[in-house]
């Protein structure tokens, strides 16, 4: 038996504009209930929506980053339904003429890169939030009018892993271009998955199941895999079922039936006559495109070719905008990109807690360049360099001051090192015997002793050279 898995995602992303979609209320997460509301969000009689231009701009950025075709003329519609947290009795959305269509996003799979299609991106507004108590329900209207984009993928994913990869890639892309903070736990990224399975021999398909409100990447992957297995079992048992909506039960690792859809919901869509159609031209689209930062995939490819980095290093260094920027500003002033990469990958990143969301170091790129120059020129050795960096994180002092303070300048003076070498050789006759007897390991011990005597300042290369010379002469 051979089955084809069909997985599509519907993703709602909250845009991080300063104000809401259709009024000038502040658009931020949390806060005292009902403190960020106005006649427009509360749908008082006579209140009218006016589109926030930045909602359009952010949506266009997202659409361009997802390789979509932009509709030069799109319009808003009313989706009519009654619900306590829906103030107007309709939600403003885009139905038949959305802002963007036909895009794609490339994911990495075990069989190489794969394009996942995107049907459309539409602008819409969020609704309020009901807080259920024992005997009453309270409503917080702060979220009313929070701008969202709905991204509908094509059913191009074949597993939980691919679904997760798509969602993660989507999140990184949107975060990278700065249109959303894409936090699943705060609801600024919400994902529903649609799953069904087709028997490739008989052509028989199961009815699509929708799993709603998944709140972690892991849950997306698990829920898809659970549903795929359930659908295959349905086909194998010759069973069929109606279109269902389910939710993910994380504790028991399974999906649970919420409702069976007998008919399509009747939202009585109609044009939103209070908003004029959104008409844009090529010049406008190009202005937005010009504001778009380099996308993660492009940046990674450029890092590999321009700086000659490994695939892995390039991936890590481009995982956040700030990190990539830090790397590039250092690499611009220091001609050994691999050394920059190595130092950041090992010594810097181990000291930065939150690389992904907020890469931040307490010193300037120029200070870091200065440190690397000290090491590269041999003025301090590698170990001293690491000490200096640690100090830069802790005391935020300049590298030159730290080196001066701690006396870390490397000693490359033959006569000074010669004195330490002579002393060490005098104290360790056994080691000399060992070396002469062919035991190389003793050499390392002697180098260590000299370094210790120099308090780490001796140039290890010179120490080695002098030890060799002096032992040979003995």
């Amino acid at each position, binding site marked *: 038996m051979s089955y084809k898995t069909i997985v599509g995602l519907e993703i709602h992303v909250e845009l991080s504009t300063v104000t809401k979609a259709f009024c000038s209320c502040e658009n931020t997460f949390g806060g005292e209930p009902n403190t960020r509301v106005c006649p427009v969000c509360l749908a008082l*009689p006579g209140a009218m929506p006016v*589109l926030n231009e930045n909602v359009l701009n952010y949506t266009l950025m997202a659409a361009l980053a997802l390789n979509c075709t932009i509709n030069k003329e799109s319009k808003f519609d009313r989706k*009519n339904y009654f619900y306590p947290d829906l103030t107007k*009795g309709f939600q403003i959305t885009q139905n038949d003429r959305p802002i963007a269509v036909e895009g794609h996003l490339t994911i990495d799979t075990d069989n190489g890169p794969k394009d996942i299609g995107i049907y459309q991106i539409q602008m819409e507004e969020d609704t309020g939030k009901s807080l259920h108590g024992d005997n009453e329900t309270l*409503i917080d209207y702060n979220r009313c009018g929070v701008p969202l984009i709905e991204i509908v993928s094509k059913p191009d994913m074949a597993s939980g892993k691919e679904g997760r990869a798509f969602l993660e890639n989507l999140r990184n892309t949107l975060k990278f271009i700065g249109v959303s903070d894409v936090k699943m736990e705060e609801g600024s990224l919400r994902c529903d998955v649609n799953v069904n399975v087709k028997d490739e021999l008989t052509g028989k398909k199961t009815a699509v199941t929708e799993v709603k409100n998944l709140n972690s990447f892991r849950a997306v992957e698990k829920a898809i895999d659970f549903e795929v297995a359930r659908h295959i079992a349905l086909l194998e048992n010759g069973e069929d079922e109606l279109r269902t909506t389910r939710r993910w039960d994380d504790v028991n690792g399974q999906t649970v039936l919420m409702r069976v859809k007998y008919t399509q919901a009747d939202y009585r869509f109609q044009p939103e006559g209070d908003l004029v159609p959104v008409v844009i031209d090529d010049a406008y689209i190009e202005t937005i495109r010009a504001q778009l930062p380099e996308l993660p995939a492009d940046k990674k490819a450029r890092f590999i070719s321009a700086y000659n980095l490994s695939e892995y290093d390039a991936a890590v260094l481009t995982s956040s905008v700030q990190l990539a920027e830090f790397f590039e500003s250092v690499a611009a002033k220091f001609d050994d990109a691999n050394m920059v990469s190595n130092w950041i990958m090992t010594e810097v990143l181990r000291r930065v807690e939150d690389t992904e969301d907020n890469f931040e170091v307490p010193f300037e790129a120029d200070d870091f360049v200065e440190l690397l120059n000290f090491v590269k020129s041999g003025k301090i050795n590698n170990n001293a360099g690491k000490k200096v960096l640690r100090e830069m994180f802790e005391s935020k002092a300049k590298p030159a001051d730290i080196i001066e303070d701690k006396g870390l300048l490397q000693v490359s003076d033959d006569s000074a090192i010669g004195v330490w070498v002579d002393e060490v050789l005098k104290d360790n006759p056994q080691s000399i015997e060992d070396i002469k007897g062919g035991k190389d390991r003793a050499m390392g011990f002697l180098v260590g002793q000299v370094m210790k005597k120099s308090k780490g300042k001796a140039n290890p290369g010179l120490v080695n050279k002098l030890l060799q010379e002096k032992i040979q002469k003995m």
Partner: protein
Amino acid sequence: MDLTHLKAHELIKGYENRDFTCTEVTQAYLDVIKAKEQDINAYITVTDNLALSRAQYVDSMYENREEQGLLAGVPLAIKDNVAVKDVKMTAASKILENFIAPYNSTLTEKVNEAGAIILGKANMDEFAMGATTRSSYFGATKNPLDPKLIPGGSSGGSAAAVSGFEACLAVGTDTGGSTRQPAGFNGIVGFKPTYGSVSRFGIASMANTFDTVGSFGRDVEDAHLLMQVMAGRDMKDATSIDNPSLTKPIDFENGAYLKDIKVAVPKVYLNMELDSVVKSAFDSTIALLKDAGATVDVVDLENLEYTIQVYHILVNSEIASNMSRFDSLRYGHRTQRPYSSYEEMFKFSRSEGFGDEVKKRIMVGTHILSLDAKSNYYQKALQVRTLIKKGFDDVFKNYDLILSPSAPILPIPLDSTMSDVEIYQSDLFTIPANMAGCPSISVPYTGGSFPVGMLLTADRLRDDMCFKAASEMERRLK
């Protein structure tokens, strides 16, 4: 001299000459209101204290010779679907019986800035749905010309206030004729501008792609004055536009505007059954226009015969959606009956709060938008609306104005039991301008036994054409 019989432009001259004070005029109006309201019921709320303190303020401005707005000291009424901050805004519905607007509409800001004195909130058909002002939760308004008759609707209170000297000017809204039909029934001037010329921010929507804000005056100059103040693009209303034709200067005393203009009379209107008084006023108006040097031709206006049907399909669909914000959760009438779910709470509150006309339209509109009926009715009606607009465009390629009566009938008795369909017919001539977004004015023909509104409609953004032609017609009738 009866101060309430002066027109707005006459009042302003009087203030400038210090013939009387704004407080005297305002008090005179409040006295008339006190005397007449029992009979006429033109107002839902009278804001007498507010009006008097505003009047004193305007008087002090005159005394100090400060620069005054265009309407300084002119008392006016505002239809009760318009938000005036801290004043009740009921839209003549029980569901908003105790709703106090926490903000001003843009037009309220503008008339305040212009120095106008708001006397109160005028009665209307509930949520502006109707043509009689009988569907108000606060009782019907009566026609001051004959209190046994309706004043028309839905801005019947605004029209009656002006015609009955309970206000000098009045603000109305016009979705299908609601300023022009009652103006015709009350023997005054009613004007509706090009769609979008006045901001709708702060005005309870009825059918938002048809709704406009219009003016009532006892002459054309007054109606024009109020429009100049209210017009202008507003950032709070995305559909609002700048319409410079509303502020073009007009010579109300001597302007010879009818000479050489071309007037079209749609053919379908000629074969219609009109009340005989209306018919003779219509014929006389055509003769008057020709006399003044205008050309009057009978023309074909494509698809005009579908106007009423298309209008009701589209308008009710918009109404159904616009009324859904009244769920009694955040404001408005809340049921006292026990309920066990939010659906029940909505249901009880709404069925108690809305009147029959509103309920009927919500149900019709909801049905039209529901899936199976939608493509048959709604989408087709949208297409026909486009065709009707195109018909207007074609006529305006060759003509300056379209002429018809404002309504096919005279105002009916308050207690008449005309069917809904018959009543809807009274908007027959006024609706096309709303479908096409055109400016349109009703000016009274006063040569017969009862004043009859004559309707002039111009091309979009040619609002000045309406005022110019109407002003000369008015002058020639004197």
